[in-house]
């Protein structure tokens, strides 16, 4: 069964303190792995799509990496406005465009 597990569930960092969020996955065949940011009361906002092991993508203070079993979202020198829930999701080759979400990591950056 396809599965996505995110850790930690919650993370509190001081402003400027870099860290990484983990997303481990089990799928029969990976078509794509996605990272989203979700602010309270809003829909998920797309951040990155990764397709193959070794791929990396960056946007401002965020960098996403992918291996055959997991993905990391690295946050460098975060600011309070980076506080949000970060969701990881995978799309399997045998499930059309359907994606499976992890439970998310709630990130809180303290000023």
């Amino acid at each position, binding site marked *: 069964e396809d599965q996505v597990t995110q850790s930690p569930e919650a993370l509190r960092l001081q402003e400027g303190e870099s860290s990484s969020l983990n997303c481990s996955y089990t799928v029969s065949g990976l*078509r*794509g792995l*996605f990272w*989203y940011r979700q602010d309270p*009361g*809003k*829909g*998920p*906002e*797309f951040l990155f*799509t990764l397709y193959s092991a070794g791929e990396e993508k960056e946007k401002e203070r965020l960098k996403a990496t992918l291996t055959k079993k997991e993905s990391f979202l690295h946050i460098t020198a975060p600011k309070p406005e980076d506080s949000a829930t970060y*969701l990881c999701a995978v*799309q399997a080759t045998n499930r*059309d*465009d*359907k*994606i*499976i*979400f*992890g*439970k*998310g990591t709630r990130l809180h950056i303290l000023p």
Partner: protein
Amino acid sequence: SAVISQKPSRDICQRGTSLTIQCQVDSQVTMMFWYRQQPGQSLTLIATANQGSEATYESGFVIDKFPISRPNLTFSTLTVSNMSPEDSSIYLCSGGVGTQYFGPGTRLLVL
């Protein structure tokens, strides 16, 4: 990318009534998806809405409770029927080719 809009943004409904949620995509997409997100939880897929065919429901969700329409490639509706307080949740739709983009959500409270 795709821009998704939803109506209504929120509603308060009485037990036993029904609510229809609309989802509009700014470009043509083959598949649209409907999700439910309960407070503090991740997204749970309700069904896949294909244009020109019946929606495909995930385990635990049935057509009588959540009828879906997909009249064209840019629009879909989800009806939450015979509502109970347990249906109080955020309902989200998504669309896109490969990468899924999300609407802002409909926040539903059933009294």
